[in-house]
């Protein structure tokens, strides 16, 4: 399997503060990578660099054979192939669930309205929200909104899906429904996924690889169960201790 995303010595700075230090990382097609780490460790920044919501400061990023920074004019093409799900859902408040999901195919992929809505209906059914098509985001629960957001990202038919703490803003009883949808996508469609999360159960069940970040570095990586069982660093041991207690 070839690499869909590669990072070579990628650094990211905000002003004078460097938050990612010379990251080297390759993600294979079909791989599910789970990124964990304490708050401020750079895990969100890492995946936001992958669809150029943050432009890397140094190094090279290759996504689907497009090289950044050399080909930064092709950022939109990268985004067509890399979907993203956000912690705060970020559904368009003036569009119904169906319109939210159909928006990407219609505008980014220039599809006709009926074809885009057909895709959107199918995806809403897939995330278990067929009967909520005509609801506005404000009329949906957090878990439902996040499932619409997942369908919206999938609708553009990307090769990679990025999840930036998709369950962190949810009430506990709604986390399960969102994780179930994510597991379904990973298992049924073989989608390449990069997931920033604190859900260790999800990591061990679906993850092919676990990455532990701290202070802008990748500190440990490997098979999720092994990394969790035998943490090599003191930081990861501590971190796992904190996560398990919740």
């Amino acid at each position: 399997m070839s690499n869909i995303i590669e990072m070579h010595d990628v650094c990211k700075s905000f002003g004078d503060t460097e938050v990612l230090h010379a990251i080297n990382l390759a993600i294979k097609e079909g791989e599910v990578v789970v990124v964990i780490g304490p708050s401020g460790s750079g895990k969100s920044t890492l995946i936001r660099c992958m669809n150029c919501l943050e432009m890397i400061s140094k190094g090279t990023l290759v996504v689907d054979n497009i090289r950044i920074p050399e080909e930064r004019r092709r950022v939109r093409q990268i985004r067509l192939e890399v979907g993203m799900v956000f912690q705060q859902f970020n559904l368009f408040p003036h569009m119904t669930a169906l319109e939210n999901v159909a928006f990407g195919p219609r505008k980014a992929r220039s599809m006709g309205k009926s074809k885009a809505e057909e895709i959107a209906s199918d995806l809403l059914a897939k995330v278990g929200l067929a009967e909520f098509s005509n609801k506005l985001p404000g009329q949906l629960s957090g878990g439902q909104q996040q499932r619409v957001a997942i369908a919206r990202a999938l609708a553009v038919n990307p090769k990679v899906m990025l999840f930036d703490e998709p369950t962190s803003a949810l009430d506990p009883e709604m986390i399960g429904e969102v994780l179930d949808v994510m597991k379904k996508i990973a298992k049924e469609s073989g989608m390449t996924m990069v997931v920033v999360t604190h859900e260790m159960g999800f990591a061990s069940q679906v993850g092919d690889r676990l990455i532990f970040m701290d202070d802008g570095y990748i500190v440990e990586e490997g098979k999720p169960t092994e990394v969790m069982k035998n943490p090599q660093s003191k930081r990861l041991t501590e971190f796992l201790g904190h996560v398990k207690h919740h």
Partner: protein
Amino acid sequence: MGFEFSVITDSLPALFAGAKLTWIITLLGIAGGMFFGILAGLGRLAGTEHLGEKPHGLPAYVAMAIRYLSGGYVETIRGTPIIVQAMFIYFAFPMIVKGLTDIERFRIEALTAAVITIVINAGAYIAEIVRGSVMSVNKGLLEAGQSLGISRFQLIVHIIGPIAFRRMIPPLGNQFIISLKDTSLFIVIGVGELTRQGQEIMASNFRALEIWLTVAIMYLIMTTVLAVTLRQVENKMKIF
């Protein structure tokens, strides 16, 4: 001198004619003001993160120039009285044209000058309303749009525009009403709008109470129409 109701009925035709002119200046003025306001309001945000990705290289300099140009317009207009602007357009501007060209008898109709003044003046204030509303759009929604791979134009038209517009309505209502009342200042360049009609009738019959009461009520009716219309637009969009 008691309150004579017949004074009012006698003056109504002239006052209605004035009100009609006030209405025309206002509607043309706010339509043009919306055009310039949206242009300058977005212009002041050109090249900032509020309109999507920040540009690099040459486009960044173009964006900066647009920002300064729009900012200059807004600050100049906000910083000078509307009555001075009207005088400038009606009296001074034709002199500039005559001085710079060979046109001998260049002149601007008073009504045209009035409409231009409202367009330029309202445009500057509307620009700030547009700027504020666009800035208030949640950054996460821009990122959600960008992450789908849409263009900046699509982002502005389909995401930023509709969300910002909803928030513009209350301050726009303010501005439309202010512009309507500002038309009364065109008495100084001789436009026969409502206030001027009132003034002329008053000068011939000295019935200040009846005339100014009627004029005030007519303004109140017109501003109410504006307010109610905008409220209806607002209610239509209330769901989000």
